[in-house]
């Protein structure tokens, strides 16, 4: 039986990912700060897919406890998906150090250090998969969300380096970077976004499962985002400075 741990399990993206794995017969461990709020999700996975699921408490900011958290799960999961993130309010993050710090730690140091502990354990075991949900916002810092974007950039770079290190060490442990564009989640409910660039949470899950099957390690959720980000990355700095994106 394949076991999948999803951290940040209350996110709609995480819920779609959990359903996708449960639909393939995997056992799910859902982790969030308040596991009580996951009781409905646990029941849902069992009733829809007939698979086992349980909820556990986890705070990504509590980095000192990450190792202990993983060891408390019993067996180390086969796959770990980190969906934890925090957009924050850009304007607030510009003026309030504590707010910016929270965004940075929630998107970068917290997830990266969790994967550090997980990777070492998976390498020792000989197999495993780490899936990190980062963001296209990390591809180039933009005025409207650079505090969040820079933290996601850190996470993306961390995943890239970790992947290379494990490959060069000949480990079978795989690392996947997921770069969603806009996703129609509860968090984005009030935001008008272009339809063509906006995915449903289920599409993120489907993209991950497809990449997993095909052995892809760095994915955009809608293919069009690869193009959009290539253009944004290639703008010369003097031009980029002036455009509103």
């Amino acid at each position: 039986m394949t076991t999948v741990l999803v951290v940040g399990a209350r996110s709609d993206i995480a819920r779609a990912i959990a359903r996708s794995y449960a639909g393939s017969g995997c056992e799910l461990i859902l982790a969030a700060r308040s596991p009580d709020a996951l009781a409905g999700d646990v029941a849902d996975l069992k009733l829809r897919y007939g698979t086992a699921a349980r909820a556990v408490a986890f705070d990504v900011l509590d980095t000192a406890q990450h190792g202990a958290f993983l060891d408390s799960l019993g067996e180390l999961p086969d796959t770990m998906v980190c969906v934890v993130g925090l957009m924050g309010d850009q304007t607030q993050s510009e003026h309030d150090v504590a707010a910016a710090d929270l965004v940075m730690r929630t998107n970068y140091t917290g997830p990266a250090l969790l994967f550090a502990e997980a990777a070492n354990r998976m390498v020792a075991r000989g197999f495993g998969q780490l899936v990190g949900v980062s963001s296209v916002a990390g591809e180039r810092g933009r005025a409207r969300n650079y505090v969040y974007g820079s933290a996601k950039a850190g996470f993306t770079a961390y995943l890239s380096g970790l992947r290379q290190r494990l490959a060069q060490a000949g480990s079978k442990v795989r690392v996947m970077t997921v770069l969603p564009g806009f996703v129609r989640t509860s968090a984005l409910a009030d935001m008008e976004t272009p339809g063509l660039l906006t995915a449903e949470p289920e599409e993120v899950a489907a993209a991950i499962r497809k990449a997993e099957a095909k052995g892809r390690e760095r994915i955009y959720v809608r293919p069009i985002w690869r193009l959009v980000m290539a253009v944004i990355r290639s703008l010369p700095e003097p031009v980029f400075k002036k455009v509103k994106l």
Partner: protein
Amino acid sequence: MRTLSGWGRFPRAECRVVAPKGEVELRSAITSASSAIARGNGRSYGDPALNRETTLLLRHADRILDFDPATGRLEAESGVMLADIIATFLPRGWFVPVTPGTKFVTLGGMIAADVHGKNHHKAGSFGDYVESLELMLADGRVVRCSAGENPELFAATIGGMGLTGVIRSAVFRLIRVESAFIRQEILRTRDLAQTMEAFEALRDRSYSAAWIDCLARGRNLGRSILFCGEHARVEELPARQRSNPLAFAKRNARRLPPGIPGFALNSWTVKAFNQVYYAANRSGVKIVDYDRFFYPLDAILEWNRLYGPRGLLQYQCVLPKRKAAAGLTMMLEAVGRAGTGSFLSVLKLLGPGRGMLSFPMEGYTLALDFPANPRTLGLLSWLDAIVAAHGGRVYLAKDARMKPEMMDGYPEFAAFRKLRRAADPSGKFSSLQSQRLQL
């Protein structure tokens, strides 16, 4: 802020949208708002799921919470999609007791509009299968409502268009089916009298609804194709489906190309469609899958865009049986004269209703689609007058434009209002529709 509309894309409004993740978030959204309305999947046609200050998007709250395979008793959060319920339970031999003509509706929306299906004459409306529900009130309290607990609030919430509070979850019963298929019978009729006779003669069929050619006039006025159906038993299926009667091919819905011009549906194309459709459906019996029988429109995603950027107006009314023939004749004549043509016109026999703001009442219901434009608005006011004169009523889930006087068609409206005042004294729960109709 987001621009929202109902399925008809008329009217549109800038709304602040909040999608609460759980009970705690829902409570804080409700208590901090001065005005709010629940929204499921926005498949009502007009403005009942729109509130500029706070539109509470519930479709993410879609967990299935409990199921009893012995009785078919299902408990789920209100945002669960009908399509998901079917995909999960049909393979296990269960189906919903009542379904609207699209599966892209939420459980909450089905209860709040007390939806009816092609089986209303025999099976009643969706509300008849709801055992209990959990409702969050304007002050953030969650109350359980059922026939035994808070029975008045229960009755007012079924068909209450979100105006009593937010349905968090509900318990209802599924029905057993042997297969994923329907034994469909088609009967063509020549005129309205024959259509109504056929409905009466086929009363014992589980499902029945007629597509009515609203452009046929004179002698042919009211000519229809009547579709009846029964859940197919295993031995009725073609041999190759008998070994796996609950399996069904997933149909890939198609999307319309973007930028459909507003004139794609005009009186010419509608007339041509009606002619072809009438000619193509010969009387006879065949086995079709549930999707094709119940949800033919779901095969084309976003078909509402066929009506172009101005959107569409759907009009659905019910006339009491005694006066139905006279009233329907007047309405069809009015539609014929206006020449606008309704692409999809459906006639159906309804059984007795459950009161409050629930739409169904014993009689004939007619549903018509028109492009949203000033001419249509004029025609619909005229149809309102015919409905009122014949003691009928208009369906709130389809309405985007009627006047408060039309609420006279709901005899328990005053009682509903009283209950609503008691549950929500400040009138926090309100929609553009409830404001327009002074509900």
